[in-house]
């Protein structure tokens, strides 16, 4: 079982500093783990089919496919073409958001104040990563993403709130790639709401070979 995965056996082990982007590849069958090193960090994440970049993660297809608003173990992450891209195989946090999207300079002006425009944001991270890596993706390829470790409860009456995190130091989510995927991450720099406990912190990413 994946519990037996030892860090020393990982093909790749990187730490992403608070507020920084990461772009990498995970091959079909490989295991990808995201570790919330210090607790309550939001990890804004998108996936693309490595061989057809027009196929990307779809929040709506994933929600509708699993019949549940929240992501956890057993949920298949579906693409805009309804195809399984990855499956969540382990989750020591318990619930992840895919409604809240990524923060941006522009949404910061709406949500908080016009003076917040200058603050670093996830969508600026995404755009910077796409500009630097030249993988053939641009702004139009940024659909609604996953916020691993983030807690955005919806009430039966349809209210939506950004609640304190339910994650903690060392908790992780682990996924098995069902196709070769590009992974685009922004380790969220948001300072204006409790998604990061007002204190963005580093995360660790590990990739293991197909079992």
């Amino acid at each position, binding site marked *: 079982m994946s519990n037996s995965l030892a860090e020393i056996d990982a093909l790749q082990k990187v730490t992403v500093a608070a507020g920084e982007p990461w772009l990498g590849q995970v091959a079909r069958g490989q295991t990808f783990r995201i570790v919330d090193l210090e607790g309550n960090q939001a990890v804004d994440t998108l996936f693309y089919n490595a061989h057809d970049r027009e196929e*990307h993660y779809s929040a709506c297809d994933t*929600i509708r496919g699993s019949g549940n608003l929240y992501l956890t173990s057993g949920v298949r992450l579906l693409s805009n073409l309804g195809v399984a891209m990855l499956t969540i195989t382990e989750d020591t946090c318990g619930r992840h958001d895919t409604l809240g999207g990524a923060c941006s300079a522009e949404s910061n002006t709406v949500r908080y104040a016009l003076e917040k425009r200058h603050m670093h944001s996830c969508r600026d991270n995404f755009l910077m990563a796409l500009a630097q890596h030249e993988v053939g993706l641009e702004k139009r390829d940024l659909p609604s993403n996953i916020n691993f470790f983030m807690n955005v409860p919806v009430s039966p009456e349809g209210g939506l709130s950004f609640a304190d995190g339910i994650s903690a130091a060392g908790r992780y989510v682990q996924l098995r790639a069902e196709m070769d995927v590009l992974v685009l991450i922004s380790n969220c720099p948001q300072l204006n709401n409790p998604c990061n406990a007002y204190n963005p912190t580093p995360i660790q990413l590990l990739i293991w070979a197909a079992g």
Partner: protein
Amino acid sequence: MSSPTLADAQRPAPDAVPTPPLLWLESLNRGEHWSGIVRRGVSLRLTALEAGANVSALLYNFELLSERYCMADTLKAQHTAFLTKGCACYSDLGRIMCSITADSCGWHDTFSGLSDASMIAGRYGRSRFQEERNSAHKNGRDSILNELGKYGLGKRDLTANINFFSRVSVNAEGALTFEPHNCRAGDFVDLRFEMHTLLVLATAPHPLDPAPRYEPHPVRLEAWYSGPAPAHDACRNRCSENGRGFRNTEMMFLP
């Protein structure tokens, strides 16, 4: 229309009747898809001509097609998981594409996505033009892709859409339930456009609609000139976030 029931009486009262003269009127047949440019200041009424209608919709800034409707920004700015009267529909650049000025229905879904070909075929069997001509089954994703192609857009531009007239409820654990009686015959929703918008619509069934027969419903579109949001406006004043969203939008249209 049938006589009012108790459930009907609890619904919000219709208001904001379209101001004549209508600029145009179109009817969408069962399963028909449609796209068009709706300019800032034009209002559009979508009317369900039968109970149980669904209108899947995506919106793009016609002057900057990479700017599009953003479910996430729309929901988090207004702390809601659904759309109704008073809501603004945000783009991914902090601007408001359209606002909902009237709604007899009360709940419009925006997180359940589109039906697709395998879903419709799995539920209702194979259906081709060759045998069924224009009654052949349609699905949401292919319908939207068909329209997007007319503007140089495609798969990569598929983002979280709105499903007007459909309601999907969520319980405390996050489990989804499709509400089959959300839309009555005659229900309508009014969209006031705050920017020049490419509007793409599909009347194919909602992806979670368990209807035993394939039966999408016809919808009427009526456009009139209402002007964009005035200074005192229920959508603008819903929350301070919307005030800033309108400010961001209006900056784009200053001389």
